[in-house]
């Protein structure tokens, strides 16, 4: 069942009469309960498109077209008040920096109960009970005492657990997690992502997991969108995208990461050049300046997205060796 359907979403930046396209005609959907990963580099539009569906874009960024439908309701046409009510209740977000996304001058308990009281209409005492249960569920020991503490009393990993508790508080149907573990150590990263996978499964919550780590995609996601230059360049199940990448960018990403399960001396094959800067005009395919297979057509004409990839000359399906 489709939970979220994004169609032809475009986001532009407007300043001093100059318009720059940051997200270009983006379409994808998320089924109830699934985990969709979005991978891409800086400037690929992966975070922006997610902020847009939360209606949290900065004031100089504008959605210039398209729709974001959650269970059939277009979030982009809701009044600010209606949208505010849906945040937390229908969709919630976990950000990268657990240091800056919690309020430093309010205790943890009040930050969790706020969402519960607002969205579930529980009394103060009931909200408090539920908050304690939530903290226990996300693995915060000694929850009752921790409720009275402030964010600075918590380690990075613990803060991210609190963020997950807040995100879960009103049982949303969808959680958007933007690089939730990038600031954390690998051991804590595994704890937090295992926890997110578990709570999403237990509550039937769908998850959009924005990351740059292809290992995280492999371990936690059902499907993956690869974004480059404001567009989806490839989509598929995690296995399809890994074993039979169709877009040269996807192949380039896979070849540029060193891996523990491969020969140490295997040389890395980086993608040449730098990530596409949205403010530099590139005609045709935005990846062409870095693409080893680029031809004349790629320099002049933007490739259409065929439901799987956006490339004039998709790679032939050659199965990668299983490792």
């Amino acid at each position, binding site marked *: 069942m489709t939970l979220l359907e994004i169609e032809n979403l475009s986001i532009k930046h407007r300043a001093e009469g100059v318009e720059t396209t940051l997200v270009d005609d983006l379409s994808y959907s998320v089924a109830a309960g699934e985990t969709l990963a979005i991978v891409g580099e800086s400037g690929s539009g992966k975070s922006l498109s997610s902020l847009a569906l939360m209606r949290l874009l900065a004031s100089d960024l504008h959605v210039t077209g398209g729709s974001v439908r959650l269970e059939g309701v277009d979030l982009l046409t809701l009044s600010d008040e209606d949208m505010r009510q849906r945040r937390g209740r229908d969709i919630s977000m976990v950000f990268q920096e657990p240091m800056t996304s919690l309020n430093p001058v309010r205790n943890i308990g009040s930050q969790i109960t706020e969402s519960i009281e607002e969205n579930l209409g529980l009394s103060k005492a009931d909200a408090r009970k539920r908050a304690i249960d939530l903290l226990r569920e996300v693995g915060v020991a000694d929850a009752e005492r921790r409720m009275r503490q402030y964010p600075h009393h918590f380690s990075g990993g613990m803060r991210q657990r609190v963020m997950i508790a807040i995100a879960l508080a009103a049982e949303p149907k969808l959680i958007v997690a933007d690089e939730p573990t990038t600031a954390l150590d*690998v051991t804590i990263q595994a704890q937090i992502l295992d926890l997110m996978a578990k709570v999403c499964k237990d509550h039937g919550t769908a998850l959009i997991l924005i990351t740059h780590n292809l290992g995280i995609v492999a371990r936690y996601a059902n499907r993956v969108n690869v974004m480059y230059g404001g567009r989806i360049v490839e989509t598929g199940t995690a296995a399809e995208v890994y074993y039979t990448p169709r877009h040269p960018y996807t192949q380039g990403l896979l070849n540029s990461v060193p891996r523990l399960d491969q020969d140490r001396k295997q040389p890395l094959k*980086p993608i040449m050049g730098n990530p596409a800067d949205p403010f530099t005009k590139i005609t045709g395919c935005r990846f062409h300046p870095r693409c080893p297979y680029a031809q004349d057509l790629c320099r002049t004409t933007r490739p259409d997205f065929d439901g799987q990839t956006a490339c004039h000359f998709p790679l032939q399906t050659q199965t990668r060796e*299983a*490792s």
Partner: protein
Amino acid sequence: MTQPFLRIEGVSVHFPMRKGLLQRQFAEVKAVEKVTLSLNRGEAFGLVGESGCGKTTLARTVLRLVDATEGAIWFDGQNITDLKGAALAPYRKRVAAVFQDPFSSLNPRMKAGAIIREVLYVHKYQGDMTARVIELLGLCGLSDRFAELYPHQMSGGQRQRVGIARALALEPDLIVCDEAVSALDVSIQAQIINLLEELRVRLNLTYLFIGHDLSIVRHLCDRVAVMYLGRVMETASSEDLFANPKHPYTRALIDAVPNPDPLSEAARDHVALMGEVPSPLDPPKGCVFHPRCALAMDICRSGEPELKRHGEGHLAACHALNS
């Protein structure tokens, strides 16, 4: 046996914690505790571990930015632990550093050329400085027009190349790379890793490479030491350490890293390491790792294990290995 190029001998670094009007010392953070390591000339040595394990403090001690509380550091046959002023200058020329964040480690008000030239100027370089700057930029894959650019006009990867060019300016023998590729996009990371490898061979450099990404450290380094709460828990060649980890902590670290292959990931049975790193103000008695260790026995709670030999060049500090 030949003498090691860099010898860290029983080095401890303690930071006093002071409070009150009289700045009375009430506690001590033992950031690094009796670490002994040797680096051979021309090798890349990796330091890994979670945040707070002391890897950066140890590197800063080698750079003489932090003073060792006890122990000694020998560089190319000379004890450099207590060198001061003019006596330290020759050492400073031979040791350079590349930092994590190319945004904050380059002066935003200086052009790249001036940033590199400053190092030459300070150390009274005898020769054509402009030619040397261009040579260094070229060595790092940047054309001479970059000398005229400010850091904000460059991408993250280009900035890191300037950082490396600056480190190379005085033809150092040892380069300390503190998370030198962590802040970069995946495709750019691979470029910089390849550049570091190429430079090492070309200029016969020795690297002390600090990283939290195990796959990168394994790829780049010949030998690795795993640190936890200021101590070295295990050290071995990269091949040996990752194929045959002895210490339960090393095993947990490796387990936490997801690989990009979805099918092998699904088949893998990973168990996330429980808990978090304890406070270095009050480290656990006995083996500092025992509260998180699945193999902990009575002896682990009372006695601190010593580093013992478990194979050719393979040291590990664990009671469970001795029984």
